[in-house]
């Protein structure tokens, strides 16, 4: 059994519940890696492109599966108003071995940052895209 899933939602997520779904998939799961991004410093509003957001995230999962032997992966990205400390995004990867789980998780985050149609706005206005994110994603080319 395997599980690959993407979701865009306004509400929060529970890392424990999401991770449990991957841990229980098969006796071959030996490593689960997670990344949680959370709102730092100031509140944010997250706008997204419904439909395309899910589509890009699905495409990223397909790309990761082609590169690493994953047993499962989940991406949850929130939209709407978010307070400081609130989680924005969760990426979970499960594999037999830790290297694959680590690399796939980092790959998915780097590409989410540069491909998935989400835009952050804070009190100063729309947040500018960063060159460092482009460079991080380019590592995987």
């Amino acid at each position, binding site marked *: 059994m395997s599980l690959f899933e993407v979701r865009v939602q306004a509400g929060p997520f529970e890392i424990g519940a999401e991770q449990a779904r991957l841990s229980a998939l098969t006796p071959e799961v030996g490593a689960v890696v997670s990344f949680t991004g959370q709102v730092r410093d100031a509140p944010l509003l997250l706008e997204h492109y419904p439909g*395309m957001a899910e589509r890009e995230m699905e495409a990223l999962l397909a790309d990761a599966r082609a590169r690493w032997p994953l047993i499962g992966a989940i991406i949850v990205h929130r939209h709407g108003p978010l307070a400081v400390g609130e989680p924005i995004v969760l990426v979970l990867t499960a594999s037999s071995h830790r290297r694959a789980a680590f690399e796939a998780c980092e790959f998915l985050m780097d590409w989410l940052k540069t491909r998935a149609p989400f835009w952050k706005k804070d009190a100063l206005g*729309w947040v500018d895209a960063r060159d460092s994110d482009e460079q991080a994603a380019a590592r995987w080319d």
Partner: protein
Amino acid sequence: MSVRLVYFAWVRERIGLSGEEYPLTQSLPAGELAAKLRALSAGHAEALTDLSRLRLALNQQQVGWDALVSPGDELALFPPVTGG
């Protein structure tokens, strides 16, 4: 015959619309279409002056400015993404 335009983030705010229909009877490159849109309003002109600051998606797939837009398509214009 038209193209469905959708706008996000500051492109949406400057234009003052989240989306609109634009008459289109034959295919043309997205860059040429964007140039025509500048004539619609001061907001359109401001948002679409410097295309190098924008990204686009045709039918929800990221493409370049040379992509051919056809009647019935959905064309999205937005700044570089900043999620995650």
